[in-house]
């Protein structure tokens, strides 16, 4: 037994050593990146100046020795004694760096610095650009050629018949030209009537509706960049949608929440206007600064010298309202967003994929009513206690649901198609 124990102990010790060595080594290599992301990345980038300076090449800039460790441990106290610390702090507008003395040990700092030194820019993925071809021109030409051939064949046919008639001595009256031929005329009139009628009726219905309306806005604002790529919630800017009738267009203050810091557009989406003209995102952000009265050089708002309560030069952005309902219709956003729990996209389409927003739905009455007929409400279930308690007053529907006379309650059932709900 004791013999085995010795071997067992030996193996255990070896395993322990190997595990210890391997984990500590591995964690050291990974840690630099993890520690950098956890502690530094919010203010520093490796290759670019951010809130703080770019870290790449730090060793050529800072004084030799343990200066860097002192600085990371507590930059504020180092600033009082060290000349270089004072200089670099002044260069970065005296923004105080968090003191990491209690959080980062010397090994951690070494790991981070090693990660910074070894860092290489990620290689951009190389992919062949997808070519989009438009075949409609080809099909159009083909159709024309075929029509021409058909016409020529028809002419040849009639000429041949004429010749054969003459040969056989059959006397025929001079044929009526096709533009006076009654059956041709009839077909023409019918086609004109139906096509013209279709467009006339559609035009008449569409008057007063603005489907696909896509006005040019004072600033090229891409919902694709903000709500799509950057994942900003719709309600961040249009918070009124959950609280009031109006979805509300955000004030300039809301834009400046992020654009105080983000003053350049760096992609990845390509900004293009509807007419195919490229848009300079950075220039559009500059437009915002002029509306907000923000000085990019001092990174602060202009002073309020004329005492009107807002920075000098600041003025509201005159966005163009796209979705307009006539005055004789009442529509409330909060009712649909908060109570009905409808996604914005149900009515506004895939806003997060629209560079320039257009009106997705026609906002017609038929469209409203159709949705009210199909949409089920979050009906209160007495037994399970789930659903919206407001609906507990609909006694009859509860009984019908229980007796399986109906399987769900739609908006129409609770009065969603009554005229005076929206017109009053």
């Amino acid at each position, binding site marked *: 037994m004791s013999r085995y124990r010795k071997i067992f102990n030996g193996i255990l010790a070896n395993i322990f050593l190997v595990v210890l060595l391997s984990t500590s080594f591995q*964690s050291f290599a990974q*840690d630099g990146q*993890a520690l950098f992301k*956890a502690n530094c*990345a*919010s*203010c520093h980038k490796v290759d670019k100046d951010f*809130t703080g300076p770019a870290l790449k090449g730090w060793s050529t800039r800072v004084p030799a020795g343990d200066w860097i460790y002192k600085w990371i441990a507590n930059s504020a106290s180092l600033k009082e004694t060290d000349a270089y610390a004072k200089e670099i702090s002044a260069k970065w507008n005296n*923004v105080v760096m*968090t003191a990491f003395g*209690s*959080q*980062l*040990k010397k090994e*951690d700092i070494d790991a981070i610095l090693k990660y910074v030194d070894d860092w290489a820019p990620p290689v951009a993925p190389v992919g062949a650009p997808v070519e989009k071809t438009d075949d409609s021109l080809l099909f159009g030409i083909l159709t024309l050629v075929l029509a021409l051939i058909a016409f020529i064949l028809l002419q040849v046919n009639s000429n041949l018949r004429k010749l054969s008639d003459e040969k056989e001595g059959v006397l025929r009256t001079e044929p009526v030209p096709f533009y006076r031929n009654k059956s041709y005329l009839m077909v023409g009139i019918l086609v004109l009537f139906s096509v*013209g009628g279709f*467009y*006339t009726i559609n*035009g*008449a219905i*569409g*008057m*007063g*509706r*603005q489907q*696909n*309306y*896509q*006005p040019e806005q004072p600033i090229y604002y891409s919902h694709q960049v903000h709500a799509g790529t*950057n*994942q*900003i*919630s719709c*309600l*961040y800017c249009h*918070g009124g949608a959950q609280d009031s*009738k*109006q979805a*509300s*267009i*955000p*004030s300039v*203050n*809301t834009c*400046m*929440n*992020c654009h*105080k*810091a*983000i003053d350049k557009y760096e992609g990845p989406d390509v900004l293009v206007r509807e007419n195919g003209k490229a848009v300079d995102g950075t220039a559009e952000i500059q437009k915002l600064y002029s509306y907000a009265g923000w000085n990019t050089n001092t990174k602060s708002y202009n002073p309020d010298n004329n005492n009107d309560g807002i920075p000098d030069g600041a003025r*509201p952005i*005159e*966005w*163009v*309202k796209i979705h*307009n309902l*006539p*005055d*004789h219709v009442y529509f409330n956003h909060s009712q649909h967003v908060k109570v009905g729990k409808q996604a914005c996209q149900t009515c506004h389409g895939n806003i997060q994929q629209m560079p320039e927003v*257009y009106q997705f739905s026609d906002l017609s009455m038929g469209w409203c009513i159709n949705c009210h007929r199909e949409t089920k409400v979050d009906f209160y279930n007495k037994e399970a206690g789930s659903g919206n308690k407001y609906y507990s007053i609909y006694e009859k529907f509860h009984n019908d649901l229980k007796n399986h006379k109906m399987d769900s309650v739609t908006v129409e059932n609770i009065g969603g198609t009554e005229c005076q709900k929206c017109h009053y």
Partner: protein
Amino acid sequence: MKKITIIATLILTTAVVIIGCKDKRDPGKIYMPDMAYSRGYETYAQRDSSIFTADPNDAGHKIFYNNLAPAGTMKRGELFPYPLAFDSNNYKISGQIQNPIVGDLPGKELEEAGRLYNINCGICHGEKGAANGPLSAKIGAIANFTQPKYIDMADGTMFYSITYGLNNMGSYASQLSREQRWKVIKYIRTLQPKTIATASAAADSTTAK
């Protein structure tokens, strides 16, 4: 008779052409302007201000924009105004103002506060308050709520920062009501480790990993 028919057809065709060729940059025409456009001020509706105001500064504007509420007025059900003005000294004393919401938020309200947090704050501060939201890499210098500095920070100081903004952060007074701001602070507290000791222990465990 024949003439009238031809003229009528021509008029109809022109009308069709005009309506059919609608430019998408143009809102188009409507049947009854009296019923479509509100006589009263409608939020964001396009109106020519020169019709309504004698103030030459306002003439030419097409929108009655979101005006501030008249001075001294208060929304119904809203908390009393915040006593501190925007001032660097007021930031230092802001911690003395107590959170009017005493104790923990009940489940439903905490859920609502969390929803507001995720919409307005999570974009930078991250869902778990660890400063890793989708925009954090673009804005920078985001507060990590799980760090000791923010566990120590008084509710009142946080409220001051949310109300007036701080460094890279802007003011959220236009997006969150006073009550909502206090509630969001309560929610942030639930994201933080309970004490500084556990926070530094957690920090140690992340570095030791």
